[in-house]
Structures are given as C-alpha cells and as structure tokens.
C-alpha cells in the first residue's frame, strides 16, 4: 500500500519544559527541538501525553504546537496531538494543526467516556474532517479505557488520511492483527518494550518517549532493524534498552523519568505539572545508572559494525 504520508523512523513526543511557576520555558523547548533534530530523530510530536497535554489548556497546546512547527522549520515532520476529553477540543486542535501547517495529527480515543467502536470512529472521522491531514492513530486502551477495535479501524477506513497507528496496547496479538489485516495503516510501535517485535512485523516507525534524551540509541535500533534488516544486532540493542523500559513502565513515573533524562542531558526539565511530582532521589539514581550502561553498550555494539 502506498500511504499518503510515510511515518518513517523515530518520532519523539517532545516534552514540555516548565519553569518553577509551571509556565512554559520557551527557550528550553527550542533547545530540546534543535537538539533532537541534530541528533537525527525523524519526526516530532507536539502535544502528546509525554508533553503533558492533559495538564494544558487547548489554547496553550495550540501555542506550544505552533512554536514547535515554527522552530522545526520543516527540517523534520511535526505531528500535532489532538487527544482530548471533549470532541470540540480535539476539533479545535485539529483545525489549528491544519492552519499552522503541521504535517499530520495524532488522534487518540477520548479518555473516560469509553465510546463504542462506532462512536469512537464517528468521533475520529469528525476530527479528521476538521484537519484533513494525515493521521497517526493512537491506540492506548490503558489510558483511554477503550480499544480501537476492528470495527473502529474498518469504519475510519472511509478516509485515506488514517494512514498510521501508534499501537500502545501492549497486546502482541494486536501487532499481528494490524500487520496482517490492516496493511494500509502503517504500524508504529507505541509500546517501548516491544519495539523489536514491532520492527520484526514490518513497523516503519516508533514513537518513543525515551528518544527525548536517548535519541541516538533509539535511532540505532531503528537503523539496525529497519534500514539494515539486521535483527541479530537489533536484538542486542533491544536487550541493552530493556532495562530502561523497565524503569519507564514499572516505576509508574513515565513522564518524570523522561524529563529527568532530558535534565541529565543539560536542559533543565525537572518541573512537572500537578498532579505529578518529580522523581525522588532513588528513582533518579536508578535511571542514571541504567542510562550510563545502555549508552556504553549500544555505542560498543554500533562501533563493531564500523570496524
């Protein structure tokens, strides 16, 4: 299938740096964007959950998205998150994405209302109509309470804009289903600890929060699996990355962990908006340890290839 937009590579859901009063630190955000692009990520997502969209007003989200599009200056594609509780808010975000010249939108199920597949599809088609941009679906049933099921996927097929899906259910059967039965929707990894499995099934992209501070290491896995088709090396890199995934998923402090990782790289991102609180000392130490080891390991693995 030839999609209308190709989501290739590592898409980073960009964090939002805040000052102590929780206002957006624009200079730091610009720094993050420039650094990520320089490090070789393939696309940016503004207004994803890693960007703390749930703690921002629609107007704020639009402002951050606009800033991101402007600063990216067309160097990499920018995808704008439209996930919101209210359909009206999602539509406003979708329209704004279109008007600001974004490349695509990220479309999630509305959280909390638990729509049926049919309701969810009609909602998605309404948001699509407002943007008329390529769409990366975001299936994250643990956060939204609802799975983008087959009826949903069949119904949204009415519009060719639905050309990618960030699959974050964690259910490997979904990877098989999407790869086999929905080849017209590009499969993207949204479950970090299954990245190798996604790539084995032909997923061309990975949306990974960790690439906010370890872009080269995430790009390394993508390149090994997708570009070089070397799954032996891919498995070694993935193995090196897995301790990080454990820190992300098992600590229950995903965003704080990512933001601390960015802080470790020298861009202060330590402030998170309520209800979240920053990492404690032990968590920080655990992350630092894991990052140090995996960087070294992956660097060594990649260096072998250049000998």
């Amino acid at each position, binding site marked *: *299938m030839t*999609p209308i937009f190709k989501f290739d590579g590592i898409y980073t859901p960009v964090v939002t740096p805040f000052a102590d009063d929780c206002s957006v630190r624009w200079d730091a955000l610009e720094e993050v964007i420039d650094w990520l692009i320089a490090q070789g990520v393939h696309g940016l997502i503004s207004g994803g959950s890693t960007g703390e969209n749930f703690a921002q007003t629609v107007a704020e989200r639009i402002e951050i998205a606009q800033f991101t599009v402007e600063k990216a200056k067309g160097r990499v594609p920018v995808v704008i998150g439209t996930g919101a509780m209210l359909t009206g808010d999602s539509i406003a975000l979708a329209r704004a994405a279109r008007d600001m010249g974004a490349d695509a939108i990220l479309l999630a199920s509305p959280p909390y209302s638990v729509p049926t597949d049919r309701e969810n599809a009609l909602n998605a088609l309404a948001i699509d109509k407002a943007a008329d941009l390529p769409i990366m679906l975001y299936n994250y049933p643990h956060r939204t309470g609802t799975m983008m099921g087959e009826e949903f996927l069949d119904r949204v097929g009415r519009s060719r804009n639905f050309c990618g899906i960030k699959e974050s259910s964690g259910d490997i059967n979904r990877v098989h289903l999407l790869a086999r039965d929905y080849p*017209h929707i590009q499969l993207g990894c949204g479950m970090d600890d299954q990245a190798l499995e996604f790539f084995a099934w032909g997923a061309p992209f990975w949306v990974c929060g960790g690439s906010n501070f370890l872009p080269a290491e995430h790009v390394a896995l993508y390149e090994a699996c997708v570009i070089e088709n070397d799954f032996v090396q891919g498995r070694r890199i993935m193995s090196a990355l897995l301790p990080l995934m454990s820190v992300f998923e098992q600590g229950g402090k995903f965003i704080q962990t990512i933001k601390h990782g960015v802080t470790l790289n020298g861009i202060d991102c330590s402030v998170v908006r309520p209800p979240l609180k920053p990492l404690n000392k032990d968590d920080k130490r655990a992350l630092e340890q894991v990052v140090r080891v995996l960087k070294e390991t992956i660097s060594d693995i990649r260096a072998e290839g250049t000998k």
Partner: protein
Amino acid sequence: MSLLTKDEYQAIAAGLDFPTMAYIDGRYRPATSGKTFSSINPATGKELAQVAACGAEDVDFAVTKAREAFEDGRWSRLHPSDRKDVLIRLCKLMTRNARELAVMESLDSGKTIYDCETVDVPETIHCIKWHAELIDKIYDQVSPASDDHIAMIVREPIGVVGLVLPWNFPLLMMAWKIAPALAAGCSVVLKPAEETSLTALRLAELAAEAGLPRGVLNVLPGGGVDVGEPIGRHMDIDMVSFTGSTVTGKRFLGYSGESNAKEIVLEMGGKNPAIVMDDAENLDRVAAHVVNGAFWNMGENCSASSRLIVHKDIKADLLERITHHAKQWNVGDPLDPEIRMGALVSKAHYKKVCGYLEQADKIIFGGKAENGFVKATVVEVAGNDVALAREEIFGPVLSVITVSSFDEAIRVANDTDYGLAASLFTANAKRAIRGARMLRAGTVTINSFGEGDITTPFGGYKQSGFGGRDNSIHAHDQYTQLKTIWIDLADDEDEAVD
C-alpha cells in the same frame, strides 16, 4: 416517500460524507498504488471526491479474500434462510438510508433526484428483497429413476464472480447482479463504473452492517484497463457478468478465452425500435410511452426506445403529440425535484452525444445542448442506414423512421446489430402477437414501453448480449452450476451373477 424541496436536497448534499476507498475484505482501504481519481458531479463539473484507483494487485488481493470466504463457507454454505435474513436486513438499512443514497446517486451520476427517489433506490431495494425472498424457495430436482438408483440434480453457487457495472443505473444494476449472486452463495468482486462509484461503496458498507461476512462483497473502483481487464483475465474468477457497451463486452470474451475459460454473461447495447402502426389506438398515450422510452434517464438506458418506426399515415399526428409530451421533459439541476432530465454522466459522454446531434439533418424538436445538459431531441432520418438509426447514442435522441406497412416495420426494426428490447403499438391482436414473435429482441412490449419487472427475465438477442438473464428466477442460473449426484441403490443380490 414524499419528495423534499430543492433546498432540502441541497442541504442533504452538503452534509454527505462520501466513501472513497476500495472496499475489500470487509474494510475500506486505499488502492495499493495509493493512486486516486477524481469523481465529478456532472451537473456542476465540480469534484465530489478523490476515489481510490484500484489496479491489478488490488483485484488479486480481493479475489484471494473472496476465494477464502467462498471456500470456508462463511457465506456460501450458510443456511439459505440465514443468507436471506442478512439480505433482508440490508434492505432495511437501505430503506433507512434511502435519502442519502438517492442524493449521492444524483450527485454522482447527474440523474434527477426525482428518478433516484422514485425509481432507482426503491427498485434497488425491491430487487434485493425479491432475490433474498427467493433464496430458500428454490428447490433442486430428482430425476425419474428405477428403484436401483437415485439421481439428484442440484445447483451450487458457481464461486467467485466478477461483476462489472455500467454508469447509467449505478445502484440498480449493482442490485440486479449482486442480489442473485449473493443469494446463490457466491463471493463477489465488483467493479462499479469509474464515473459512478460512490453508492456502490456505500452499499458495501451497509451490507457489512447487515451482517454480510468479510470478503463476500468486495467493491473496487477504478478504470476499465486497471480493474475490468484484470477481473476478466483473473485465473481464479469463475464467471463474469458484465453490463455495458458491446465493444467492451466482446473484450471479456477474449479475456476469458485467454485465461481460465470463465463463464461470461453479457448485457450490452441496444438500438431499440418502437413501432407505431396506423391502427394504434389512443395516439396520445402512445406518444407518452414513446417519449418516456426515449428520454427517461436522459436516454442513458440500453433499453431506451431510440428508434421510432412510424407508419406514414399517422406520422404527422403522432409527432405533434410527441412534441407536446417531450416539452414536459424539462432539463436542469438534478437536485430540483421538478426536473425530469438531469446532466449527462460525463463531459466525454456529453461530447459524444453532441457529435450525434450535429449529424442530424432534420431536427423536429429539441436539439439544444449546453454545459453537459442535452434537451430531449427528436430527429427525422432518411432511412435505417444512417448512424443516427444504427448506433447506440445513449442520449436523449429519438430517431424517426417512416414506413408504409407492417412487414416493412418489422423488417426495419430487426435490421440492427442489437436485440435488447422492442415495442409495438397496434390495436390489431393478430398483428400484436405476430409482431411480438417476429421481433428479434429479448423483451417485446405491446402497446407500452417497459422492461418488465423483477419477475421477468431481462437480456438481449444478437449483439445485445448472451449467457444469461438479469431479473427473475432465471437470474440465479448464471451464478450457479448444475451438478448431478448419482447414487447406486442396487441390491447386491440383484447384481450377483449366477
């Protein structure tokens, strides 16, 4: 259903959400190539949607899925009553969405909303319902036999069928084919006409909603070369039913011979005569029938009575009445329920019809054409040998030929490559029956214009087609094949040799 106002139809049109993807294996997908083509509203020239332009790889994929569905029996081996239930549910869903379908059909094809609302959509539903109701009422046969054997003659669904549709009645022609094909238990790979794909795609979605299993009905929009030909040449399609031009129909015979010798059913062109004899009664009524036969659906109808063969003695009288009736066939915005003639289906077809108008020496009525719309036109031709009398124009052009006797009328009527339909107007019963027998056409109507209804077979003689019939119980035959099951019951002792 009562008609709405033009404003109301326009409001519905503005809110329509067009299906634009191919429908394969129970879901919408873009063409593998990612290509699309523009679907144009012929009444305005504006684009309605970009529709998936399928190709051979999509046909192949759809056939694989259709075959899977056929072989695992999810539809083909379902109890006939269960198949009936699904199709009846589809009819209910179509009824619920009838208005949307009618407006979509009008926008896509240029047909008047009046026709879409009063003919196309209700007849489409009626057709599917009729075949659905028939499924569990067709019995197989047991041959006359001795006590020593029993022979059953049963009909089985033929398999994966390719259905290739024309653009003049997008919904209705789809129903004519899918209703008996699905009723029989076949899996379908359907190509709507490139000009009019939207309602077929919508219908596929409704069928899935009604419970038709995945893979059983696949709709692939696209061009003739890209989709039609791969269907014709596919090694795993068991039969093709085609309705369209004679030129294209003949190609399918070639594809069949060059591939897997699949069965081919053809419903093709017509240049149908309407004979009016000097003894015809109530010329006013005759005129109404002739005008309806010639101009209904803008003459974009293979069974349109496009040749008026009239006896010289009543010619002047009849033409005057025809002119009077033809005046009522006003041309304009198809979404206006007062309009009887909408736009011709495409710019290319409009140009073709205009080309024929230019050939006319003597225009009795009409003759005007602009912006894709052509007025009801009556032209006089010198004999039956000119293009206006021989070629299928597929537009609102009625060619008038004068004759002096009944035998001459029949001779002229039969002097054509086609043989789809014919009508004969006479009050003489003997002539009516003799004429009906002598006219070489699939459907002959006496003192009326029509195609019969769902209960009667529709199809042609000569180059109008062969291989089967649409409508009626006979339509099922083409989607099934006969099997003989012979069972030996002989007692071993009788067989023993002493």
